[in-house]
């Protein structure tokens, strides 16, 4: 078992997408961890609020001083660096909490079945029947701007996906013999769920989580794009892109005049999401039992 698992992990890192994905993630982790050194914040200020570096509202192209240029009186480089932390925060917080909650709902529903399951699944269905983006927009508007509120809104409307997955897995596993065995030996419910059911359905959940990580970061940015994301001037890629939105089509006669406003935060975001998607892809290739070829 352990050698098999070790081999799986080796395969995970050796596959093209796994290697690319994990390297990108490692890179972003380093950037996030080293943010205070890469882009030192002004003393005494909240480092997540991008400081004003220029008074002119007009964007400035990259220069030796501001290597990614200036947008909205702020250093794009600073925003991209600190935005890495915001991206991790949104992605990880939402994924972890919603997965935990979904796990709970799914596990309880799947394991106990009958009425409990029926009620929980109906509630899940109701949440699923509200379009995700619209629901998130309403919730984020109601809670007001701020990354924490975005996170809350996203959690509130994304726990259903892991819940369903877990429930399905549990129903499948429940039939299997070792559960019956465990039950006959008299292990209690929680014990069965924690010891036997969860470990066996954890990989599909992990795969789904890493895939969702990417799309959550995009959704958070979409909220920013609709003007209800993080607070203004908060170091957040979605916010930077939202600011760039009104400059994307260029100025004067030049379409590409403000390219740097889109390219740097955009690239950061695409690469970040890409990293998670690649990791998810690799995870799936390795762990999805249906794909043993």
């Amino acid at each position, binding site marked *: 078992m352990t050698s098999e698992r070790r*081999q799986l992990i*080796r*395969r995970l890192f*050796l596959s093209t997408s796994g290697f690319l994905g994990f390297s990108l993630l490692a890179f972003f982790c380093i950037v996030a961890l080293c943010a205070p050194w890469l882009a030192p914040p002004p003393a005494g200020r909240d480092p997540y609020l991008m400081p004003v570096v220029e008074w002119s509202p007009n964007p400035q192209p990259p220069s030796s001083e501001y290597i990614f240029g200036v947008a909205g009186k702020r250093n794009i480089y600073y925003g991209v660096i600190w935005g890495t932390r915001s991206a991790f925060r949104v992605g990880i917080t939402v994924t972890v909490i919603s997965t935990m909650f979904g796990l709970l709902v799914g596990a309880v529903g799947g394991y106990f079945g009958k009425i409990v399951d029926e009620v929980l699944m109906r509630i899940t269905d109701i949440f699923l029947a509200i379009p995700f983006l619209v629901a998130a927009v309403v919730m984020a508007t109601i809670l007001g701007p701020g990354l924490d509120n975005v996170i809350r809104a996203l959690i509130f409307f994304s726990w259903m996906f892991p819940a369903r997955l877990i429930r399905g897995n549990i129903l499948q596993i429940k039939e299997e013999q070792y559960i019956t065995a465990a039950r006959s030996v008299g292990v209690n419910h929680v014990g069965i769920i924690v010891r036997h059911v969860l470990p066996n359905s954890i990989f599909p959940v992990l795969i789904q989580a890493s895939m969702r990580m990417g799309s959550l970061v995009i959704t958070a940015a979409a909220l920013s794009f609709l003007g209800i994301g993080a607070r203004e001037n908060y170091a957040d890629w979605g916010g930077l892109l939202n600011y760039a939105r009104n400059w994307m089509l260029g100025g004067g006669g030049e379409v590409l005049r403000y390219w740097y406003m889109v390219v740097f935060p955009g690239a950061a975001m695409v690469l970040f999401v890409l990293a998670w998607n690649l990791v998810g892809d690799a995870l799936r290739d390795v762990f999805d039992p249906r794909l043993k*070829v």
Partner: protein
Amino acid sequence: MSVMDNYILQVHGLQVTFTDIERNEIHVVDGVSFSIKQGETLALVGESGCGKSVTSLALLRLLDGNGRIRGGNVLWQGRDILSLPLREVRSLRGREIAMVFQEPSSALNPVYTIGDQITESMLRHQKVSPAQAKKQAEEMLRLVGIPEPRKRLEEYPHALSGGMKQRAMIAMALSCRPRLLIADEPTTSLDVTIQAQILELIKELQKRFHMAILLITHDLGIVANMADRILIMYAGKVVEEGNKQDIFRRAAHPYTRGLLNSIPRMDQAKGTFASIPGTVPDPAHFPEGCRFHNRCGEFTETCLSEPGKIHLENEHFVLCHYPLGQKTLGCRAK
């Protein structure tokens, strides 16, 4: 070894490898040779993972994914299948050599009707109209003992029971009257009573169509019932070969002995190989020398070197340093 005219299929030194994720080549089938005479039943026996299924697939070049044939030849009436153009191999498949697989519910395509799947191969290999093919298919279904064959033709596989599915599989395989039927564990997934029926059916049809059968199985009970000659495979190699009587009465290889000791009587449920300690080694890590040495009761230092093939009697060969219950009669084959 002399080429005899009544051998329809001769396999020489077949080598099959698989590539794992780290791109290591793993020899799954290592120098397997055998031949089949017209009309006889040759049983290929071994535990799962010994390479017997791979061998059977390699014969028709049906290995998929990363399986590769690395050597040897497969002579079908004098022509080497392994070097024929794929187009010609395809025209052999189903027409001259047909296959029946272990798991009828997964070997039948769930989204096409039984009739569709049976006529498909007739339409491919014979000059018949769809209507004729359908009529023949119905006939075949009747032949394999499926009631209401006309109705069954229109049904999807999931509507049939396991035994019926396997009958349909057989009907499909025999629809072009092949000269060799490769049956890969044809009854493993079936209930014991059904098993017997299916085996009877195969025997009956064999007589009727005068075809040879390559029966792949791990079940020596079936072998005793069906086979004319037996090939014992272990870890990618043929370790013993001989006709039924020789093997059952004078098994020379410790592995064969082990198998025979675990043989269940026909009235019992499926047997196990519990009497042989350990499991079949992982193809990536076959032991040095005699591949059975780590499970063998007769193990000595000598066994760490490659054993030679020993001719015992008639067509009885064994691959062992210490063949059991025998004086070494023949010379060591090369």
